[in-house]
């Protein structure tokens, strides 16, 4: 039988089609809507509206605040947790890890509904603590995304390095500060990126927790449900720019810190 030999270019075709259909095309549509008016003419109305409306700018600031707090809380919980799981020498560390990853297997709305019941039981009326509930809900939802990359980065670290540091006179704290922590930076970066960005847009958590507050995602949602494609698209576009900026900054930070080791992609 004569084998069919595919060149590298041919093999890339399916991926290219996928990329065009689901990444490039939507982006173009998004940008088109963001910079046109209802008659289809080029317009900066939506852009001007975004920055002149105190409601949107306020929401942007609030979203950034929520994202920041959620990311910080996730990192604070996940870092020691991942460290213990990867390095603690626990007998069933993989089973324990599964315990933290498993919520990802359960439907997201189901999880949040369950959380809502627990919070209602604790707080009585959910409306009293919108910010707290948002943070709790999102932390619960996003924690695995922070634990996993950190856990892998700890696992990847060569244990010889810790021994080498101790051999050269470093005590336990110094070993951590000078070797373990700097080498876990790529893990921290991917964790932060995977939590910070979704936390700005995932308004479903807020909605489901009867939340009256707005984050960027809620704004887009409300514009779109009112068939206002232009303002909604512009907000999405602004978020895209913010995401791009953050990615660039964290990537540079990571590169500086771990030299030319590479291996980390966001």
């Amino acid at each position, binding site marked *: 039988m004569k084998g069919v030999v595919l060149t590298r270019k041919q093999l890339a075709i399916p991926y290219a089609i996928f990329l065009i259909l689901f990444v490039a095309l939507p982006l173009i549509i998004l940008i088109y809507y963001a910079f046109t008016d209802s008659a289809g003419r080029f317009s900066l109305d939506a852009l001007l509206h975004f920055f002149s409306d105190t409601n949107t700018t306020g929401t942007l600031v609030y979203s950034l605040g929520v994202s920041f707090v959620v990311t910080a809380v996730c990192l604070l919980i996940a870092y020691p947790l991942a460290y213990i799981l990867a390095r603690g020498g626990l007998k069933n560390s993989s089973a324990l890890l599964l315990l933290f990853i498993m919520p990802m297997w359960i439907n997201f709305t189901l999880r949040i509904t369950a959380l809502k019941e627990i919070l209602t039981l604790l707080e009585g009326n959910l409306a009293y603590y919108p910010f707290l509930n948002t943070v709790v809900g999102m932390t619960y939802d996003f924690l695995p995304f922070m634990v996993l990359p950190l856990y892998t980065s700890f696992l990847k670290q060569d244990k010889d390095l810790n021994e*080498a540091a101790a051999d*050269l*006179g470093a*005590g336990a704290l110094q070993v951590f500060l*000078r*070797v373990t922590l*700097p080498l876990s*930076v790529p893990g921290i970066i991917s964790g932060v990126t995977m939590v910070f960005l979704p936390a700005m847009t995932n308004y479903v958590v807020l909605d489901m927790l009867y939340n009256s507050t707005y984050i960027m995602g809620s704004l887009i949602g409300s514009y779109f449900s009112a068939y206002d494609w232009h303002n909604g698209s512009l907000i999405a576009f602004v978020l895209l720019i913010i995401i791009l900026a953050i990615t660039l900054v964290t990537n540079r930070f990571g590169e500086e810190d771990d030299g030319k*080791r590479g291996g980390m992609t966001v």
Partner: protein
Amino acid sequence: MSDNIIELKNIFKSYDGKINVVEDINLEIERGEFVTLLGPSGCGKTTTLRMIAGFELPTSGQILLDGKDISVLPPNKRPINTVFQKYALFPHLNIFENIAFGLRMKVIEEKDPATGKVTTRKLKDKEIVEKVHHALEIVDLEGFDKRSVSTLSGGQQQRVAIARAIVNEPKILLLDEPLGALDLKMRKEMQIELKAMHKELGITFIYVTHDQEEALTMSDKIVVMSDGCIQQIGTPEDIYNEPVNAFVADFIGESNIFNGRMVDKLKVEFCGVAFDCVDDYPKNQLVEVVVRPEDIKMIPADTAKLTGTVTSVTFKGVHHEITVESGKYELVIRSTRSAKVGDVIGMKIGPEEIHVMERESSDNILEGGMMNSGLFAYEGTMIPVKMEEQYPGSVTLDEEMVKLPDGREVTASDLDMRMIIPIDAISMSDDPKAGIFAGNIISLIYKGDHYKYVVRTKNETDFVVDDEFLWNENDYVSLVVDMKRVRLEVMDKEEKK
């Protein structure tokens, strides 16, 4: 008096209280020596090194540094540095910072000459820069300060690892197979450089390797280890010329090893021929004989006591390796002269070239007890026995009672007994159900006409077995015992203690 920098006293190491990885290591190392721990993988040499470094704590025993007990001191408190097998350079730091790592940790004591007060301080940046540059000079990597680790070749990384260790001016430098990852040419170069470095620095080097040639080239003293125990300590010449047992002879260099017997004073018989020798053992003593391949001279067949037929010739550059069959024995000769396959040649071995060693008892002895009068129990294995056959003079009275040769009638299960299985009463089989015991081959030595195997069972009993066929290390074999040749003995109460 000798000036020992480090002493290991009765060191044992086991994990989870099970098997001893290191068993009763006693070692004294003099200041400034280049000592090599040599042995096959899993012999405990790396574990020993890690205990000296402080990464592992001995289960029992003492490690004395300059006479002070450092057995439980953590690694960062020991004036000892390590060059790791896989270098373990910090990927997030450049070369300069890698080497400066230890210096930045260091706290030095200073005595004010005026007041006599002792103060401590960290090293100044200037001092660190100086020291790092000096270390880079020693390893020939000047100007590499700003390079990142990943841009270096294996050999260069190795040099950085050495610089990182010696920059701290340790009392002892530990090297754990540091050249293992380098190619042959690089390895030879580094061997010479390491040796030169040792001379220049005057630091005590403890080197771990499984490469006997490397050990012979570099060391002042070699410690040959196997199975967690020290087999022999000595200079490279001692170890090569006067191995204490067949294991050492086999491990160090090429050798012909034969079973032999002393037939007269200073006369040993092996390969069916009596030779003059210089090692004095009583007549009829069973011995093992080691002859190095380069010590067998080829002479015309008609003038020789020992003759044989050439079965293979391999050209090895400087010499030829010639295999000769003499009766049922096989000998390997190294000679600058060649021979033709099929030639009948004579072989001459001078008295000085024959190294004779006492042969250890070749019986396998199992200490156990009787379950009843027909069943010997050893570590959970039941072996059916017949008292009359295995223990001449005794009589089985019934299932429980036995009459001993001295006339006493005792309950069999009260007896502590020793089972003696002669080495040639055991044969190996690859059918795991064929024999009483089964285990893995942990070592084998070729003895000219047969192989001597050590088979280790699951519960750590070693059996010595001779077999003329070649099995591989780690093969799982079962041991078939010819019960007719097995003897039983009653053990005294005192012996049991």
